[in-house]
């Protein structure tokens, strides 16, 4: 079981987020999860926190299958003048607390399927409304890891499903 829906768009920059948290799922050609361990907790924190570059929410309808799905993507960037990072890391933030797990992004973007259902009219589906409301209980914050191993502070958390 993988998340092919997450392979759309800039596939190399998307993370199969949940799979990456444990690294125990089956692999496929679409699986882009990272293999490099997170920066150590003792890493030096320096510089400004990164910011959200873009966040989009996309509905896709598959008429042949008679289904729809909604996908969210959020991309981060360093502030102007900051060096390009070696890599990016994210941490899940929920209404119940902040996960202690830190996961590496293969690029600078988080991608996540937020809703899916039967039919061809997602906007009319109460399941989509409920799923997006549930997804708003989940957020991600990101930080950049530099070549010297130092890290930026965490960005502000970005709520799953938000756009901007």
């Amino acid at each position, binding site marked *: 079981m993988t998340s092919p829906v997450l392979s759309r768009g800039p596939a190399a920059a998307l993370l199969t987020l*949940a799979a990456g948290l444990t690294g125990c799922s089956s692999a496929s050609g679409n699986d882009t999860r990272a293999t490099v361990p997170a920066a150590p907790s003792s890493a030096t924190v320096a510089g400004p926190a990164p910011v959200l570059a873009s966040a989009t929410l996309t509905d896709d309808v598959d008429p042949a299958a008679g289904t729809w799905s909604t996908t969210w993507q959020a991309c981060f960037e360093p502030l102007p003048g900051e060096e390009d990072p070696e890599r990016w890391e994210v941490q899940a933030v929920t209404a119940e*607390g*902040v996960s202690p797990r830190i996961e590496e992004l293969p690029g600078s973007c988080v991608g996540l399927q937020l809703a899916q259902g039967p039919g061809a009219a997602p906007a009319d589906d109460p399941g989509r409304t409920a*799923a997006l409301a549930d997804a708003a*209980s989940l957020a991600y914050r990101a930080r950049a890891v530099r070549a010297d191993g130092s890290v930026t502070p965490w960005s502000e958390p970005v709520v799953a499903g938000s756009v901007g």
Partner: protein
Amino acid sequence: MRRALLTGSAATAVVAGTLTPALAGTDERRCSPTRDDVPVCSTDGSAATATFLDPTATVTGARHVSLGEQIYVGPFAELRASKRAPISIGASSNVQDNVLLDARGGSGIQVGDRVILAHGSSVRGSASIGVESSPLPPQVEDTVDTLEGSVFMSFGSEVDGATVELDSGVSALARVAPGVTLPSGFLVLPGKNVTTDAEASDPALGKVRYLTQADVAFNEAVIHVNESLAREYTELYREDPSAVQGANVDPGGSDVNPDRDLPSFAGEEQAQPDSPNRVIGDVDLADTYDRFTQRTGERIAIRADEGEPFVIGHVDRMDDDVVFHALEHTDVHVGDDVRYGEGAIVHGGGRVVVEGQPEEQTVVGDRVRLGDESVIFRSTIGDGARIGDRSAVVGTDLPAGAVVPPHTIVLNGEVFGAVEW
């Protein structure tokens, strides 16, 4: 806030009907929360694997309760078991504030590994959650990695004599009725009462939706958070048993909440370990401790062990079983003269920080009336608003004076539907 100094006396957990020593059961990695095994229920002595029961949690028939490792049982949770109706809970699950598991009257309750029982949820009779599983529907099988499996039961939801399979969930104020099986891959929508197997497995009937990757990611994070809480409260208890009693410090110990903070009453930080309610961490109450005690009922959990601070104005009246909780950096602000109905839940979280959009925080204005078992989550409630009994307001800005009728679900500013039970 400054780091609190810990002093104190021995903790006492509420354990009824448990006069015999603990029995480890057939699995050496499980334990029973008998008198000598609360609030820390550990098989190997390590805080990393210990299960922690808040001292206010009530266990009836503890010899017939079997707990796995790394379980967090929150304030005022109740586990009611008997010889004929045992309860088992798997590893890395959590039983949050004011959750009820009552197996009596049935043949027992089985809760599997990695099950989240959120604030105010209940499980009754002969029930199974996260133990059985069936093949995922193709829509889910093709798009979702369920990882190690999980189940989420949201605020005020209920499973009554039913089976909830692995990789499923029950939304806020929803219910799975006796005899029904909620299969893997489906979540019950908020407020819905699923009374047939057909309703439980067909989204076209309007009561369930498909599991998504976001659901799995959310569950993963919540499970990790509560594993941390089990460890951190265990360490706090071992450092000072009185520190997990009454109005007292949060455990700290995490990178997001490293310090132990005391609550404050009328501007004075203080520990009140003898308080029958739990007020934990950086909670800033306008009332003096005496006035707060006079205005509040029993089994109240105001738990700022992640989000902080909570700023709570003068309480008009707070009935039994009220719960406050929130995410880190989620400031919960409640105004003056608010009336909290029995079992009301005020929960912060979901802060939006997308550029160009306002931040959303949980704010309850002055003179608001919260009905019994109502839920406020990620919302702003204007002054004088009234929320009906068993209604939920999620992701919504309610204007001053607004009225939400009883048994109504409001999501993102719109009425989603009725609470059907």
